């Protein structure tokens, strides 16, 4: 028996030796040397656990031929289990043990005995040492104890080394992760970022390749973001839907999937990628959402520890966040660019003056934003039958010619214009998209013409400020390029902005026009009222002198007059009175028209006015040997009227009656009360008025068709003024008459009520 002292010494020495090892191969070398020395063996072989595939692999050999070495390295698990070597009992091997792997060795190495010492740590086989003797000078059991001690030490050392290597690797991996994160954090380009991630993941795991998929949860489609170790052609087959295949199911479940060994039948992508043995698929998650999947695959069998999974998951999530950030950044930039463009558009729109300038801004901006080659904007004319081209963008001469030939598009049914996309856009109040002019069957005539300009696709957007279209903008593309949802929305927004700007400018122009014409009519009115003042003074003053002097003479203030003088002066006076009446009528009409006729309504006693006017007309009546009768109802109530003006109306009707009646006939003025009003009639037996002229007589300057009227003197204003005066005092005026049977002119006025004031 070996003394324990010696054993302790061995233990210590071995411990030192092993602790001083620099790395696994150094350690293995030490183990095998110590084993050989302790056992006084002739040859030896050592295998330790390979972390990458969790299997034993050859670590060192001593004095063995290469063939022997490789025979041992063959299927270690097989001969190890065949040897039945256990945790604390090494196994002796002899040619008669019947271990197939050793068969060649017995002969070749001319050894006769072997000892198989497995190393275990926590029930896991982490290595095996095999020693061979040609001819042991002692029974093997003699060395067994010390070799077992070695085994103990070696186990610990190997385990420590394994762990040390693992932590080395992990820290390298973490370093890598840090490097990736930094690299990726500095990236704003999502594409580049994804490439970095997938390459680093494959490198850290010593994988044969990797692929990163982005998952669009809304559409259910997974796109390849980046890959390494995969042929481009193979990538074509790697477009999955969420839930489809292994990668798709990780995308849906959000749970890591590891496959240590794919069954031959389900060798994944075998044709395109070559045989894949193991793979690990981790989800990329941002805020509880799976935004993608990272896959790392191996062509050899690989075991994955929990550390592996968590490391890759961390990497994947870092990547997910970074990719998301990059995407947001890209989106933000796009939005900013868009905002800037929109801002610029708005600025240009609001500084444009006049509808043509606005149309130009619209077509310029919208066409450039859409990336179209040319664009034109059309305005709908007032009736909605015609589209007129307003402004054009795009230097293509073919296009300009095209627009010049079609400046007006009729929208009436049956015309070519009504069969254009513009017409449809307006009718339906919706955007019309023709993705490929050559394949679309609608608008054939139009498309053929447009295609001659080189355009291959067209979009028509109606401009609708409130509820109906005021125009349409047409964009022409030289490529068949479909628009994304975002782009379409942006274009709609531009169309809406354009529509309201255009509408505003049209309103502004209309308002300005109205303002100008209002100003003009106000000035005209102003001139008219000034004219009225001028007329009244300038005409009346000389009339004053004429009339005044004649009246003085007629009153005998200049001496007696002979008959002729009296007669002639009388004629002069009569005519000045007529002139005066005409001037007064003109002034009244002018005032009425400019709204400056002032009426003072008060309780009016009509009977008094009638009497007054009858008296005033007496001379004229007598001169024509006519008779005037008045018939005023008893207790006639007061009316609400302007007494002076009512007097004017009655005087006017009376003088008409006198003028247009034959000598010797009679005239009657009647005043009677009816429901809420008083009616006055002036009847004569004069020439009468035909029924088709009953309305017209009240028109300004109307003189009637009858010859009598034509030869009778008058300006034709009296009845027009009378109508205005009566109606603005709340009454009505009308005539009952027949040709040759006399006329009755009547008007009514509302009663004066105390409480209505």
């Amino acid at each position: 028996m070996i003394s324990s002292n010696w054993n302790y010494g061995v233990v210590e020495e071995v411990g030192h030796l092993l602790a001083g090892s620099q790395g696994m191969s150094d350690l293995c070398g030490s183990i095998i040397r110590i084993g050989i020395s302790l056992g006084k063996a002739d040859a030896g072989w050592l295998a330790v656990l390979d972390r990458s595939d969790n299997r034993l692999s050859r670590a060192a050999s001593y004095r063995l031929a290469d063939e022997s070495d490789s025979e041992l390295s063959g299927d270690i698990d097989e001969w190890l289990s065949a040897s039945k070597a256990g945790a604390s009992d090494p196994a002796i091997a002899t040619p008669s043990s019947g271990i197939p792997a050793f068969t060649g060795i017995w002969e070749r190495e001319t050894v006769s005995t072997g000892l198989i010492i497995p190393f275990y740590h926590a029930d896991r086989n982490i290595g095996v040492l095999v020693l061979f003797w040609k001819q042991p000078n002692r029974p093997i059991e003699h060395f067994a104890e010390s070799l077992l001690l070695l085994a103990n030490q070696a186990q610990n050392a190997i385990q420590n080394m394994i762990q040390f290597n693992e932590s080395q690797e992990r820290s390298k991996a973490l370093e890598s992760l840090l490097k990736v994160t930094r690299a990726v954090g500095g990236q704003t380009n999502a594409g580049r970022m994804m490439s970095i991630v997938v390459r680093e993941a494959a490198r850290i795991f010593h994988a044969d390749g990797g692929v990163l998929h982005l998952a669009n949860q809304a559409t259910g489609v997974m796109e390849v973001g980046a890959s390494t170790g995969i042929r481009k052609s193979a990538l074509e087959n790697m477009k999955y839907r969420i839930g489809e295949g292994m990668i798709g199911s990780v995308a849906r479940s959000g749970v890591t999937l590891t496959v240590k060994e794919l069954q031959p039948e389900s060798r994944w992508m075998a044709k395109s990628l070559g045989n894949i043995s193991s793979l690990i698929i981790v989800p990329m998650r941002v805020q509880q959402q799976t935004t993608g999947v990272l896959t790392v695959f191996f062509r050899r069998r690989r075991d994955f520890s929990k550390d592996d999974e968590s490391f890759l998951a961390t990497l994947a999530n870092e990547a997910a966040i970074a990719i998301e950030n990059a995407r947001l950044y890209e989106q933000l930039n796009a939005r900013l660019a868009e905002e800037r463009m929109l801002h610029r558009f708005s600025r240009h729109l609001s500084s444009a003056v006049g509808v043509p300038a606005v149309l130009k801004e619209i077509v310029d901006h919208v066409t450039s934003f859409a990336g179209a080659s040319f664009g034109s904007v059309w305005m709908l004319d007032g009736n909605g039958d015609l589209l007129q081209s307003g402004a054009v963008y795009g230097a293509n001469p073919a296009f300009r010619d095209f627009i010049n030939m079609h400046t007006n598009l009729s929208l009436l049914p049956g015309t070519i214009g009504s069969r254009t996309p513009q017409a449809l856009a307006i009718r339906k109040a919706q955007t019309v998209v023709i993705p490929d002019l050559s394949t679309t069957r609608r608008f054939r005539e139009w498309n053929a013409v447009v295609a001659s300009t080189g355009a291959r696709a067209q979009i028509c957007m109606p401009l609708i400020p409130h509820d109906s279209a005021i125009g349409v903008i047409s964009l022409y593309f030289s490529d068949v390029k479909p628009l994304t949802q975002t782009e379409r929305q942006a274009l709609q927004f531009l169309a809406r902005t354009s529509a309201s700007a255009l509408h505003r400018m049209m309103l502004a122009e209309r308002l300005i026009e109205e303002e100008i014409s209002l100003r003009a009519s106000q000035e005209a009115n102003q001139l008219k009222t000034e004219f009225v003042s001028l007329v009244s003074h300038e005409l009346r003053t000389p009339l004053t002198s004429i009339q005044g002097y004649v009246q003085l003479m007629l009153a005998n203030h200049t001496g007696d007059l002979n008959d002729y003088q009296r007669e002639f002066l009388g004629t002069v006076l009569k005519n000045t009175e007529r002139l005066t009446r005409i001037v007064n009528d003109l002034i009244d009409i002018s005032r009425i028209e400019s709204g400056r006729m002032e009426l003072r309504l008060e309780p009016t006693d009509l009977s008094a006015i009638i009497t007054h006017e009858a008296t005033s007309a007496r001379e004229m009546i007598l001169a024509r040997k006519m008779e005037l009768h008045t018939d005023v109802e008893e207790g006639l109530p007061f009316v609400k009227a302007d007494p002076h003006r009512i007097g004017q109306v009655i005087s006017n009707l009376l003088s008409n009656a006198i003028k247009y009646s034959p000598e010797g006939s009679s005239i009657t003025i009647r005043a009677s009360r009816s429901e809420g009003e008083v009616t006055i009639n002036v009847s004569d037996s004069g020439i009468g008025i035909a029924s088709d002229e009953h309305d017209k007589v009240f028109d300004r300057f109307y003189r009637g068709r009858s010859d009598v009227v034509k030869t009778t003197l008058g300006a034709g204003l009296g009845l027009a003024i009378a109508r205005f005066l009566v109606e603005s005092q709340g009454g009505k005026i009308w005539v009952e008459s027949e040709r040759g049977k006399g006329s009755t002119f009547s008007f009514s006025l509302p009663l004066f009520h105390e409480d209505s004031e």
Partner: protein
Amino acid sequence: MVVEDDADVVRLLQFRLEKEGFEVTTHGDGAAALKVAEVECPDLILMDIMMPLMDGIETLRQIKSRRATAKIPVIMLTARADRIAVEETREMGAVEYIVKPFDPEKLVQRVRKALKMPSEG
């Protein structure tokens, strides 16, 4: 006193009023009339509105605002027949408003009435 810038009308008025027995002074503009009125205190002023420089309405205002002349009755005699002029002058204290052209006989009656004299015939 007659304040009127049209010479023919002035002569017409002067002739008729002197025939009636009145003493008539005439002035072609409001400013001169005002000065003289302050000194001479006529019994009645017949005044046109449309005159250059100071018009009849302004002159009326001046007459009515000066103690010396405030009590003199004023008759407006003018081609301006709009209500604004009528009311304004009435508010300012004119006793009558006669529109041109006028009948000189009627004018005489209204002058006599304003002077509170019995009318003839």
